């Protein structure tokens, strides 16, 4: 059991590193600073909060709110596949992939992809912050459940 948990954690960390390659260097550096500060003091200092807001815009505060509410869960299946599931403000579940930026929320489609005026939506940023702060919930799902979540079938059915 412990070995399985370790493997999941290793996978998760590896995948987040992979996903972070989609970020500009300044954002990567900032997330590393947040991680370091939170590990040392269990809080994020004001200067880093300001930097988060500067780099990520309004999504930063909304993402921190999601982190406070423990809204991010890392789902993993026996196959080893993982995905982040984030509970949005409306209670809807958003599945964010772990190796590239993707979220089915309207803000990702409009602000990130269409208008290109945001780096990330609040859900993906919350997943990054939870990983940096070690606050992500862990949950196991079956392979079939994982497939339905990845394909959006689970979301369409609810």
């Amino acid at each position: 059991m412990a070995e399985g948990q370790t493997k999941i954690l290793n996978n998760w960390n590896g995948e987040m590193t992979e996903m972070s390659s989609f970020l500009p260097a300044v954002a990567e550096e900032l997330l590393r600073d947040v991680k370091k500060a939170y590990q040392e003091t269990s809080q994020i200092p004001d200067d880093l909060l300001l930097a988060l807001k500067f780099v990520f815009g309004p999504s930063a505060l909304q993402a921190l709110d999601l982190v406070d509410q423990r809204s991010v869960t890392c789902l993993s299946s026996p196959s080893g596949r993982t995905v982040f599931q984030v509970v949005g403000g409306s209670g809807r579940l958003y599945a964010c992939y772990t190796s590239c930026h993707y979220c089915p929320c309207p803000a990702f489609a409009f602000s990130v992809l269409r208008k290109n005026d945001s780096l990330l939506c609040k859900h993906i940023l919350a997943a990054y912050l939870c990983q940096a702060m070690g606050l992500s919930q862990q949950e196991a799902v079956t392979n079939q459940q994982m497939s339905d979540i990845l394909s959006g079938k689970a979301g369409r059915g609810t």
Partner: protein
Amino acid sequence: MADILALVLKCNCAQLRDNNDRKLTSISGQNALPCMIVGESCNIKTSLLFLTAVTAASELGVRVLFFTPTPFQSLPGLLQDSLACLNPDSLKKITFMYSRSQEELLQDVACLHESVRQAAVPPALLIVDRLDLYLGLQREEQAAAAVHLSALLIDTASFLTRNSEEPCRVIVSFDMERQGQMPWELVAPDPVLSILDRYFSVHCTLDQDRHSGAPSPPGEPGDAWQIYFSGAGNTVANSGSNQGDQILGCLWKLTIRPNGTMEFSPTSMESCVN
């Protein structure tokens, strides 16, 4: 991805075919990135994808998953001569998945992780023919579907790569629209394409060659196409020094020969041969 397309060009180029060094390692560089083959609607892209699948299976010995909305009833005519001497065992490494709708394709790709632990060798190449046919009709729907399908393919390839010694590559084809009715008018910018750029950083463009007189019907003898690579992911490749990078940096010509086979030739031989 693009390095496999470089191998396809090399294996089917008369000038380069005599070179026995067909290993991917000899041509791969920093161009193993997700690749999208774009161009006007024609069967040439499907034939090129089919040739890519066969080349990957026969030359590299990797498993290939080929997603297509339309079942193949026979080998593409353009490839029948090229494939005549192929070892049938190579074709067994290619699995055709006839996903008929967007939902089916999403489900087929999403469930690939379920069989990884059972499969002796996970697939190392995911090919989707006619991605545009899976996007629906409404503009908003198309954008959302394009993003979901692209991200799922790349996330799945990433997962398969972690579970294999061989990196898993992704190649898709996408039909573009024309700005006007006349066949030689420039293709219109497509908002879906700009979104796909985020996920497929190498573009392989097929453009019918209309400079040498009246173009032949697509796929018929005498038909000629220009092939070139572009995109953010190809910038690095162009500056590389190995043969794969140089192949991707060339402007290529695809000619349909009188016997119906496809022949590739670089416009500037020195840069590819050296």
